[in-house]
């Protein structure tokens, strides 16, 4: 129901810059994830949008209008807090109705809106319970309902799934997406979990030390992180150091611990021959093969971790670093077994070392 724009948003605490010149534009109805580790500035950005912190520089525009002068209780922004922040002394009904009562709506309308939103989050019938009588998942839905019932322009979600167990998390991912798309509300999610970001958002913004590292679709960030840092954050597990050579046709060779790996020329654009580089590959993209070939390394299994859907192996001895392929089935591979690991060139991300 509204667009959100941040222009050059900066927040400094004395000498420390928490948010550094952040600019982004969220379209109407878009869900954007701010992804980063603790201290990256994502929560500070959220607080500035909500009005709990004043920007040192920069502007925040909701539907084109600057909100700087508007106090937080007039901004009509729905917030979901990581610890839910449900009012312990009020029932579920009273919690959800709180914002509506402040808007001075009439009782019948309040009752109707509360009933509607509770049915949307599938909590009908729990009106009279107190937060302490609810399970974690139920509390979370009340918090979501409370944030949405006032029909805010913008929805801010602070680590919405972090307190849930695995099963509930999957359930809520689907629910949040469904509700958000159904209501068409512009949403910003703040999270440190790349899976959460990728599964929920239309666009992902990776942050580090107050600055934006990369903006892109979940798929782009997931497959083509723009730096070794982002790759690491997105769960790339194998990083190999090497020196890149000049182009040989469409590919370029990289010498890693004496072995040769080929990467597509496009992946290493602009990197001069002779530069030290880091190669990054996702576990799932590494393959175990039977025969030697191009981009195949031979090594020995040093660890086997069965995870149910995949088995994660650690292979040493091929290059200086540990290579970590993941295999899709229960494998009988043992410790100490020799293996051949194939690294598909198209899947390799190349980063120049700084």
């Amino acid at each position, binding site marked *: 129901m509204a667009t959100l724009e941040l222009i050059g948003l900066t927040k400094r605490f004395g000498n420390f810059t928490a948010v550094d010149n952040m600019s982004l534009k969220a379209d109407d109805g878009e869900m954007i994830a701010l992804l980063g580790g603790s201290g990256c500035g994502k929560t500070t950005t959220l607080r500035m949008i*909500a*009005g*709990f912190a004043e920007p040192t520089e920069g502007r925040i525009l909701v539907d084109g209008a600057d909100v700087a002068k508007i*106090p*937080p*209780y*007039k*901004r*009509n*922004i*729905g*917030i979901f*807090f990581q*610890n839910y*922040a*449900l*009012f*312990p*002394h009020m029932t579920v009904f009273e919690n959800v109705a*709180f*914002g509506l009562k*402040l*808007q001075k709506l009439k009782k019948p309308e309040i009752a109707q809106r509360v009933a509607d939103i509770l049915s949307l989050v599938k909590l009908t019938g729990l009106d009279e319970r107190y937060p302490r009588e609810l399970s974690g998942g139920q509390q979370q839905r009340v918090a979501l309902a*409370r*944030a949405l019932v*006032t029909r805010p322009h913008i929805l801010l979600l602070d680590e919405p799934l972090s307190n849930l167990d695995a099963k509930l998390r999957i359930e809520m991912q689907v629910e949040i997406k469904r509700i958000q798309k159904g209501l068409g509300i512009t949403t910003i999610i703040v999270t440190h979990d790349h899976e959460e970001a990728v599964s929920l958002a239309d666009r992902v913004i990776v942050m580090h030390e107050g600055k934006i590292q990369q903006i892109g679709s979940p798929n782009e960030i997931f497959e083509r992180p723009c730096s070794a840092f982002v790759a690491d954050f997105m769960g790339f597990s194998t990083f190999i150091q090497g020196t890149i050579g000049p182009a040989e046709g469409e590919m370029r060779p990289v010498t890693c611990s004496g072995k040769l790996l080929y990467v597509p020329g496009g992946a290493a654009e602009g990197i001069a021959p002779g530069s030290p580089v880091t190669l990054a590959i996702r576990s799932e993209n590494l393959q175990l093969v039977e025969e030697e070939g191009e981009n195949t390394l031979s090594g020995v299994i040093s660890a086997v971790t069965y995870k149910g859907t995949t088995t994660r192996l650690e292979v040493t001895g091929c290059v200086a670093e540990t290579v970590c392929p993941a295999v899709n089935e229960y494998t009988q591979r043992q410790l100490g077994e020799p293996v051949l690991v194939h690294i598909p060139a198209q899947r390799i991300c190349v980063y120049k070392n700084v």
Partner: protein
Amino acid sequence: MREKRVNIFSTIVAVLVMLFLIAPLVVIVIASFTPTAVVVFPPKGFSLKWYENIFSSSTHFMEGLANSLKIGLLATLLDILLGVTAALSVCRHDFKGKNALLNYFTSPMYVPSVAFAFVLLQVYSQIGGVPGALRIFIGHFIIILPYIVRNTVSVLHVFNWTLEDAATSLGANPVQVFFKITIPVARPGIVAGALLAFLYSFDEVALSSLLSTPKFITLPIRIMNYMELTFDPTLAAISTFLIAGSLVLIVLMDKFVGLDMFVK
């Protein structure tokens, strides 16, 4: 089934201590019904005459009660205002010197009431013309303030401040947040503190005895004066009254706020 974690020794000592704590009170209650002027055990009969005597004007107990209640209630109300704002200032906000400020708020606790009373006495003599009720009121509201501050702080210490942010995001202005969210959630601490403060004022003797004037005397002092003149079971009767009052208060506390507030 949880294992028993207590040994016999502790159990026995605990029981003995409980008996020790209860003993004088039980004795008083029984003594209040004795017909004889000197307390004899077992009491030879049953009489309510000492209770009747409480109301007689020669004891001044009713007048003393009124005075004690007036001071206690007014001092407590004022201190709720002063103490809650003080507690909020140090709990919700973070600033250098926060701990020093908190210590300042609770500093009257560390000054013996006789010392403070004496200081006030000298100040009053210098100023002159300070009415008895006011003399005592000033002393009381200062010395009971730490109770309210301390108990409110202990509740606010574990207060989830994001509740205030949540209310703000839903449209509540700072005043609304304060009255609809902050105060209700902090209420147990405030009530416990207010109760302790009131009782401390009500039972206070040292300061009151130094600062009272012939026209304004509080109940505990009246009781002590009576003790010096006539040591009869009227004292037991008024004591039983006060004991009953305390019992009612503790039951009310438990109902509304729970007794865990005291275990801090």
